């Protein structure tokens, strides 16, 4: 029998659709999302109890007083068990799905009822829709529509459509043909026959269909939870994947309350909307005796008034209640949203909530989604999820990584102590390592309880571990799911029965139960996975700051378990409180993990003042001046920068047009100016004392370490030294003193200027050609390239300068705070080098960006440079 590759066809079809019909899917996504958001906004707006009141009035209108009371109690209970938001999400999803389903299904049913061909063609399609397991099209749904409510809505529509179509068709076919003929015999237009005779008479059947739709939709909503549909489905899914009986019970109960309400209401709706239903209702009411008030139902108009009044109250409360601000976050995020996805394992939840808190503090609007690994990777590959925080690589999530890695970027590992293992309860005293399992097959009934068959750990276990330890015949690995495995573990431990499970560290099970990780002396499980943060493609470009934070993010075992414990103690639904209390115990951690560029800086004393700062177009001058500009601005100053040649700048300083400059090379290089103007100036203080003038060569030029060496290797350098501007002190010194001392006179010193020199250096460096350049320290070139400063054993370059801040005489008086900061300011070569490099990388005109990047990378630097009380 040849293999019919239906699976690959389907997969090809999905690929093709994803590639070519994306616009359509995007459109559908936009429409459905908008629809959902609209309905959700309306439902989520009012206070829970007011909405419960509105639901109760509807119940009163449809079914009478007892139903109304039960409704109110039911929904109040949902509110009390903190499932309200989830319930509203689910309700919105159900409503959207049902409205669309009904809008499509009823006309389709009518069409099918009128045309046998359509009815016949539709039937197999409906069968397919109804019986195809929803999970099968949920994953393509994610590829098409992305994560979130939309694939949920779409699969709900697909799933719940058939009964509506069928019941409509049936209802219309059931209408007595003589009645249709009668209508026709009186000359009724077919459309009118449909709307005035067939539909009203078919309405009870159609309503039964709609009731089915709603119930199916509700059941589907739970499944949609695994695709990020959120709502009660999300809660149920969460409780499943973490074996959280408490949450499961509460979410389940909420589903039941919602289901019963919707079922009874749509059931009763028939009595209100269909003429036949109204007849039956009137009859029933007429036949009634005693306790009439229980059955009394407000008239439609009265019920409407009630609903409107409550809605107005809700609206009013919403309007007046919305005055509270939206928190005190930083401003790095500017409210940009970042979606974080995670597989709902403890470590995933812990880090994700930690990042949620961090990002919120930094002014982002993070959105969280717990998902199965499959939907999570598929959704992220599509770009729906920005970051997932617990990818187990290289083993556990290997298949997903292989499939999607082109569309993801690895933000690095943040935890590397994971391991895969088989665990047994520690009351199994004599089983400590995998070797001990041999021969104990009978005790364990030859069974190792596994997790999802697709998991990497299962593959390794079956393919390698069992073989390596010779357990292949004795044990079989049982495919199951993580939650079933955990449930089985729990059950066995309670009964003190032997059990062996596939487990991994970190895992909360180790905290909850007393378990033995079986040693793996042969290393069959391989070295453990690391936990990686994965970004969607392009994430680090879109959010460089966050990506940098995440790349540098790291937790050790103590931190992770501590965090997990706090979160577990805070309880479900309060994860973030757990994170907060953990952060309280780890002060400063947020600033360390996510050094903010805009942490709200306290204003300086002289905030608002505008110092005039001059600077020459030298790298360290530009760098430090822009650094101070940024620091001052954060402190509320309004500095003005003036780019000047050295001469005019000193003049300006002396007259007071320039208040201060940071690039004074003293006592040597700029001695002439200092001597000339010093009576009008003040030396605020040196901030850098390791300056030097030198010749430098790339380190790949071996054997050239000193100026003497250079002379010996003249040919290699083609007898050339690349110089800078001819008028500078360094060039003068080179020619007058240095060159003669080391026999370098016959070198040709080019006089091209600093930038030409640097360009030449870069060119040569790339080609690995020998080159000798006139350079000085500090210079960013030392950060960028691997250069050797040629030693000057004879000291011909003269005494080192330090770089100092020069101010006008009045400067300390005019800007006491600023001058105080400058006085205490120091920079290390590394700091200056990296600052210059960042500015260089940012490019001309973007100096501020470069500075900002550097400040981000040096948390606390602002406070260090410009301390305020």
């Amino acid at each position, binding site marked *: 029998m040849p293999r019919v590759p239906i699976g690959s066809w389907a997969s090809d079809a999905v690929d093709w659709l994803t590639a070519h019909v994306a616009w359509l899917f995007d459109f559908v996504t936009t429409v459905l999302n908008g629809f959902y958001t609209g309905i959700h906004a309306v439902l989520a707006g009012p206070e829970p109890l007011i909405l419960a009141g509105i639901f109760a009035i509807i119940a009163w209108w449809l079914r009478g007083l007892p139903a109304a009371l039960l409704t109110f109690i039911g929904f109040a209970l949902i509110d009390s068990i903190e499932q309200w938001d989830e319930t509203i999400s689910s309700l919105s999803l159900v409503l959207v799905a049902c409205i669309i389903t009904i809008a499509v299904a009823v006309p389709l049913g009518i069409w099918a009822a009128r045309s046998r061909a359509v009815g016949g063609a539709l039937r197999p399609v409906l069968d397919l829709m109804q019986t195809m397991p929803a999970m099968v099209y949920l994953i393509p749904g994610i590829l098409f529509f992305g994560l979130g409510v939309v694939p949920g809505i779409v699969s709900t529509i697909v799933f719940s459509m058939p009964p509506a179509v069928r019941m409509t068709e049936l209802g219309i076919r059931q209408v*007595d043909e*003589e*009645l249709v*003929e*009668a*209508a*026709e*015999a*009186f*000359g*009724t*237009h077919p459309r*009118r026959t449909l709307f005035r*005779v067939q539909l*009203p*008479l078919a309405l009870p059947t159609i309503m039964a269909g709609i009731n089915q739709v709603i119930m199916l939709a509700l059941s589907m909503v739970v499944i949609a939870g695994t695709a990020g549909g959120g709502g009660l489905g999300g809660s149920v899914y969460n409780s499943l994947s973490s074996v959280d009986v408490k949450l499961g019970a509460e979410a389940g109960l909420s589903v039941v309350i919602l289901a019963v309400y919707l079922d009874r209401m749509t059931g009763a709706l028939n009595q209100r909307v*269909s*003429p*036949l239903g109204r*007849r039956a209702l009137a009859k029933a009411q007429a036949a009634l005796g005693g306790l009439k008030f229980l059955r009394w139902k407000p008239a439609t108009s009265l019920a409407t008034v009630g609903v409107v009044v409550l809605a107005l109250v809700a609206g009013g409360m919403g309007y007046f209640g919305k005055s509270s601000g939206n928190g005190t976050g930083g401003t790095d995020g500017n409210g940009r949203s970042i979606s974080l996805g995670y597989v709902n394992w403890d470590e995933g939840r812990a880090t994700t909530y930690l990042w949620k808190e961090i990002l919120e503090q930094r002014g982002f609007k993070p959105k969280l989604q717990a998902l199965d690994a499959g939907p999570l990777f598929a959704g992220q590959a599509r770009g729906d999820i920005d970051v997932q925080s617990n990818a187990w690589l290289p083993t556990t999530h290997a298949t997903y990584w292989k499939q999607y890695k082109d569309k993801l970027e690895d933000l690095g590992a943040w935890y590397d102590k994971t391991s895969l293992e088989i665990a047994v309860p520690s009351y199994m005293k004599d089983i400590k390592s995998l070797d001990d399992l041999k021969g104990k097959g009978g005790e364990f009934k030859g069974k190792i309880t596994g997790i999802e068959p697709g998991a990497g750990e299962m593959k390794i276990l079956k393919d390698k571990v069992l073989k390596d330890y010779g357990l292949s015949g004795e044990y079989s690995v049982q495919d199951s799911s993580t939650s079933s495995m955990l449930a089985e573990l729990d059950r066995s431990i309670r009964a003190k029965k032997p059990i062996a499970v596939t487990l991994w560290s970190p895992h909360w099970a180790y905290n909850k139960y007393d378990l033995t990780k079986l040693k793996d002396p042969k290393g069959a499980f391989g070295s453990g996975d690391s936990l990686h943060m994965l970004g969607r493609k392009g994430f680090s470009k879109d959010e460089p700051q966050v990506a940098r934070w995440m790349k540098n993010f790291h937790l050790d075992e103590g931190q992770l378990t501590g965090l997990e414990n706090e979160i577990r103690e805070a309880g479900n639904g309060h994860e973030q409180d757990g994170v907060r209390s953990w952060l309280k115990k780890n002060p400063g951690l947020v600033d360390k993990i996510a050094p903010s560029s805009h942490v709200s800086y306290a204003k300086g004393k002289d905030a608002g003042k505008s110092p005039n700062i001059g600077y020459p177009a030298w790298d360290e001058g530009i760098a430090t001046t822009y650094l101070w500009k940024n620091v001052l601005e954060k402190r509320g100053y309004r500095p003005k920068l003036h780019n000047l040649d050295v001469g005019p700048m000193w003049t300006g300083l002396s007259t007071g047009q320039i208040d201060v400059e940071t690039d004074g090379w003293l006592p040597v290089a700029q001695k002439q100016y200092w001597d000339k103007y010093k009576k009008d100036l003040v030396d605020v203080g040196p901030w850098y004392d390791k300056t030097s003038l030198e010749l430098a060569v790339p380190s790949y030029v071996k054997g050239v370490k000193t100026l003497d060496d250079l002379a010996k290797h003249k040919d290699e350098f083609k007898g050339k030294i690349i110089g800078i501007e001819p008028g500078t002190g360094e060039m003068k010194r080179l020619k007058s003193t240095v060159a003669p001392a080391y026999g370098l006179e016959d070198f040709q010193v080019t006089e091209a200027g600093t930038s030409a020199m640097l360009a030449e250096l870069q060119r040569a460096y790339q080609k690995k050609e020998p080159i000798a350049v006139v350079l000085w320290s500090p210079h960013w070139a030392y950060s960028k390239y691997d250069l050797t400063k040629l030693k000057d054993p004879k000291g011909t370059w003269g005494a080192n300068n330090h770089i100092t801040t020069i101010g006008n005489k009045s400067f300390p008086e005019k800007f006491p705070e600023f001058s105080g900061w400058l006085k205490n300011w120091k920079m290390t070569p590394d700091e200056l080098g990296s600052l210059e490099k960042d500015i260089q990388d940012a490019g001309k005109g973007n100096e501020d960006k470069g500075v900002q990047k550097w400040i981000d990378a040096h948390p606390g630097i602002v406070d260090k440079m410009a301390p305020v009380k």
Partner: protein
Amino acid sequence: MVFGRRPKDAVRRLEDGADRDELRAEGTTAAVIDASIEVDEGQIFVVMGLSGSGKSTLLRTLNGLLEPTAGTVRFDGQDLTSLSDKELRKVRSEKISMVFQHFALFPHRSVLENAAYGLEVQGVPRAEREKRAYEALELTGLKGWEKSWPDELSGGMQQRVGLARALATDADLLLMDESFSALDPLIRRDMQDQLLELQKTLKKTIVFITHDLNEAMRLGDKIAVMRDGRIVQIGSAEDILVTPANDYVASFTQDVDRTRVLTAGAIMTDAAEALGSTAPDGKKLATAADLLAAAPATVGLDTPIVDLFTPCSTSTVPVAVTDKAGKLVGVVRADRLLAVVGESGDQPTAAAVPAPADRKPSDTQDKKPGNAPADHDPEGKVITGA
């Protein structure tokens, strides 16, 4: 009227002489074949036949619910088969209404709304259509039931609603499809009486379908008997009874209570036959006046013969039959009466009942009181089926 695949082929084959069973073997049903009928204004035209004889199909071609495969339907000078859907709907809503076997009342509408349905379709404003529906309901004896719902009424009452609905539109032509068949016999009789009563004043043209010959005889001014999609005989009740076209019709008439259907006019013999005879008291009956004086009873032309038995048994003088003016037109002798009743269809030959054989069907038109005279002008309703 042919149902099934390739109906046109079937028509051709029928024209070539194929019969219904041959077609049925091929999966085609020829429901009505070669049926030409003509219904005059103000007439109750009854189509009678067993189920499956095609009578309901024939009826539905009359208002265009079914379109004949071949042939035409002419109504009021118009060929219905050539009308567009829209025009046809207009004709149906204004000129032709219908009463159904199982009433076909809309269960989601009150009695009043049901009665007003036709008017609603016509687009008559609410106030007026309710007024007219009230009138129609009153006419059918349902005053006071307007607010009720169809399922609260008995079968007879429901059909009155159906009748009211048909009458309310003021249509000229009323199609009644076995309208009384689903009712109990007693109620059915009531309804028949009521229909006849109404017809006296309304003078609608009515095509009435039934499988009950007694009903046909009671109601029909003219009766068409159908069998296997073909019309076997068209004629007045007496024609059918007295001169059945073939054995089939005759066997049909066996169970009919002739004494109620046949009238004195239909079986009377020439008065001259009795003139000159002698009365039991020896008096010579020389003139019509003598005869009238001596006759045990004097009856009208349309007196059912059931009323003649008693007078006939009390005297040897025949019963005198007079026209409306009181002029003697014939006599019924006791032996003649017995002969007609006793014959009971065994010998359905004209010989046994020679007297009325030469009467033309159209003569029956003035048999019933209030009937319009024969009216063959183009305005008359002409219905032809094929």
